[in-house]
């Protein structure tokens, strides 16, 4: 039991003294998750809107596919992305393997189904009255899309929070694509895996607490946004 309490106190120590190596992992984590999130929302919101709003052939199949991909294991995504961006892969010339960019691509693929599926169902659940109202006030095309997304902003915020949860917590992609390179692609989760493997539970717990703290801060930020739009 001692190492748990020890870990907790060392965690506090770490958080307050923040050595350069830990700090680098925190920075990488932040940079990585923020770019993954931005990319996910940029692609996922329009895609989810199109899927939820338009009636077209094959829509059911795409919806089912997106729902299935929600359960995509991180290592499988890691594997596929690895295959594509490794030197022998079709995108090999871009040198994305063992880079934060490559990791961000993997995490985006991981989070995209969440945002697409939840956005699509949020848009589907909007009332027909809203569509008629917007049409009769003169909206069409992208203005229509933007207003519909704005009307379902609470559902979208939940989608974003869920997606962020998946991104910030995953190890598979970061490990396989990033390679856990110190000062470079080491994130908090890969560092925890490493330290626990080395037997340094205390450091592992400390890093885990840090991760929790980041997650907490992001969620508080999002709730604040939600609250602001509320009143």
């Amino acid at each position: 039991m001692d190492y748990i309490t020890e870990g907790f106190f060392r965690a506090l120590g770490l958080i307050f003294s923040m050595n350069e190596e830990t700090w680098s992992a925190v920075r990488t984590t932040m940079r990585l998750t923020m770019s993954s999130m931005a990319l996910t929302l940029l692609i996922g919101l329009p895609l989810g809107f199109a899927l939820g709003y338009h009636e077209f052939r094959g829509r059911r199949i795409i919806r089912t596919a997106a729902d299935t991909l929600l359960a995509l294991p991180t290592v499988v995504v890691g594997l596929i992305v690895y295959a594509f961006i490794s030197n022998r892969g079709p995108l090999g010339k871009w040198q994305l393997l063992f880079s934060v960019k490559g990791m961000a691509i993997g995490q985006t693929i991981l989070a995209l189904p969440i945002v697409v599926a939840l956005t699509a169902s949020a848009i589907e659940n909007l009332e027909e009255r809203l569509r008629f109202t917007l049409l009769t006030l003169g909206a069409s095309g992208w203005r229509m899309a933007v207003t519909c997304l704005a009307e379902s902003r609470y559902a979208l915020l939940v989608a974003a929070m869920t997606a962020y949860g998946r991104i910030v917590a995953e190890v598979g992609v970061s490990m396989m694509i990033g390679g856990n390179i110190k000062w470079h692609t080491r994130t908090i989760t890969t560092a925890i895996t490493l330290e626990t493997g080395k037997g340094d539970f205390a450091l592992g717990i400390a890093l885990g607490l840090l991760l929790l703290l980041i997650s907490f801060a992001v969620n508080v930020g999002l709730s604040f946004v939600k609250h602001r739009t509320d009143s």
Partner: protein
Amino acid sequence: MKNIYELRSLTHKYGSHATLGIKSLDIPKGVVGLVGPNGSGKSTLLKILAFLLPYEGKMSYCGRETADKEREMRKSVTLLLQEPYLLRRSVFENVAYGLTLRGCSRGETEARVSDSLARVGLPFGEFAHRPWYRLSGGEAQRVSLASRLALRPEVLLLDEPTANVDELSAAKIKDSITKAARDWGSTVIAATHDLVWLYEAATDIVSLYEGRAAGGAANLIPGPWKIDETDGRFATTGWGCKFLANVASGAEDMTCAAVSPGDITIRPADDEGIAATGKGFNRARGVITQMSIEKLSGGIVAAVNCGGLTFRTRLTRGTIAEYGLCPGVEVDAFFPVSSVKFI
């Protein structure tokens, strides 16, 4: 050009359920009322006139075929839904939404929003910055109307704008509608059950029954209409008496017939009088239920309930005085068989 809309053989279905089957309907410019029982297709017709629903058949708007031009035509037409939807934004942003889409400048937008709110009786200072959820039902209704008025549309379509609001709100809504028609020459087409207002404000009335429509404040006589064996003409007996209609040329189904108010005469109930009318007339015994002033003609409109069917007819003050007609009086209604038209 007198007509704003002309509909020919227009049909609409929800799935396999036919909701509208209009053979021919002209809707003139002005203030037009849309009346009919629940489920008769008022809301559906309004959505089609607002270019929101697909349909089969022909429709022209301002003398132009509407096919494939819906998107452009939608810009000059706007509809207030039966259950209005407010965007999850402030009152100001709700009313300004359509103006922003049309590229109005900031100053112009503000002026129009404040003008529109004033028209529906909501003080700008008190309401403009309220969020959507801090409004009563009647206030929300008026904000929705204001967001339509702000567009100064050529055609303002309203689906029961005064249902679910108190009398004061209703009066403000009706007032703003009349002013819109007067100030901008907008054509107003309103579904409503407020017949007193309708006769006061409307320049034409379209009647609907089970998806059939007729203009000119027509009285509808729903069927089933069947060939009468002894007579050879069409007859329906569902209303406590027998109505006849000539075998129509061109009309392919006899679901519903219409009689214009001008063809109906009423006299105090008199069995001898009834017996004296010839074969050429339909007659029905009923009670006057309502009399209202028709602003357009300056005359008086009486509603007569005959076995559940309401006939409306115009009366002169002379007739009223001569026969002592007033609500509650039992009367006979007459109209020529030849005046019954299938729609």
